[in-house]
């Protein structure tokens, strides 16, 4: 006879996906294939990480805390060309690579150009040092749902946890900032925001690979 606990677990974790969602997955896969084929990794497109570090687009928040950093591996993972990118050093010990790109979202806004321009301008002119990072970190610390507060959930060595928390907080602040700024300009839809923040212990020396 099957263990009743296991039976109960099977039942409790069964998940329902609607037929409509199943159909959308097939379309999503086709689009993902087109995206994958149209956007080779940034590294292969421009031929070297050092070029990525020194050459891409506008800076986001070029304040006193920013620093040149070699090898922004985040762009390899994300495989997009950011509208705005930079690095920031937090607490004199953690270096974060930041990159975001704004896409028009025609599905939710027939004329997304203005919203896209506003979001791009926000990202280009954003001063990372002005973001309430300490407050966000404190709020995250109190958030029981925050994966970083659930022991063992994140696949991160304990020594990397502080950097991971800064990544999460910074990412949240930037994304929230974009959408708040869009709302101030009367836009609730029209952009897809893609981006990442990758923080790690240490201060990069800016030496290209």
């Amino acid at each position, binding site marked *: 006879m099957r263990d009743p606990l296991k039976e109960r*677990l099977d039942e409790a*974790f069964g998940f329902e996906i609607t037929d409509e969602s199943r159909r959308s997955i097939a379309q999503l*896969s086709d689009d993902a294939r087109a995206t*994958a084929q149209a956007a080779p990794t940034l590294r292969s497109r421009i031929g070297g990480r050092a070029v990525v570090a020194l050459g891409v687009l506008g800076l986001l928040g070029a304040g006193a805390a920013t620093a040149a950093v070699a090898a922004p591996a985040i762009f390899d993972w994300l495989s997009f060309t950011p509208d705005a990118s930079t690095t920031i050093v937090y607490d004199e010990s953690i270096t974060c690579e930041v990159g975001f790109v704004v896409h028009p979202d025609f599905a939710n806004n027939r004329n997304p150009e203005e919203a896209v321009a506003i979001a791009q301008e926000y990202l280009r002119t954003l001063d990372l040092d002005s973001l309430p990072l300490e407050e966000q970190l404190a709020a995250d610390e109190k958030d029981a749902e925050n994966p970083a507060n659930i022991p063992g959930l994140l696949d991160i060595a304990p020594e990397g946890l502080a950097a991971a928390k800064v990544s999460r907080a910074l*990412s949240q602040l930037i994304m929230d900032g974009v959408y708040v700024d869009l709302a101030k300009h009367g836009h609730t839809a029209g952009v897809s925001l893609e981006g990442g923040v990758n923080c790690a212990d240490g201060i990069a020396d800016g030496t290209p690979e």
Partner: protein
Amino acid sequence: MSRAQDLRATRMNEAVALNGADLLAYFGRRVSPSEDAADLLGETLVTVWRRVADLPSDELRARMWMFGVARRVLANYNRGNRRRWELASKLRRELAAHPAEYASRVDHSDIWADVDALPGAQRELIVLVHGDGFTVTEAARVLSISASTARTRYATALKALQLAYSDGESSGIRL
């Protein structure tokens, strides 16, 4: 497109047809709001299509490989790297209107609470086995841990859940 590329694309389409909904459920169980699952699935699919040449030929290994990619996408999300994929907007809207949810209409809040109370590594193993349908050995491969570690971890988790039921101190699993 070469014949080899055609073949790989066909195999990938088959793998997505077999595993796409399960991958969406994988994310649906683990993220909130549930529509974020659409973006995570989009990112996973872009990644697997980019790496289509690495897709294992065996069906089960292909499934585990795709879940391995999904696991890294989820870890990246949990570290703060968020993306909103335009290509996932349709699925995102569908999930916003009809959130992906647990299938059972029975109240399982007690057992969810007890599983939530497990250490993260044990909890993930329980959900991989009882939610995503992997055997303990397969789940070990998805998690990149040894099978013996997974077996020990799984047994410990079950023991803790059984204990939660028997001592009645936690939310209490009703069997």
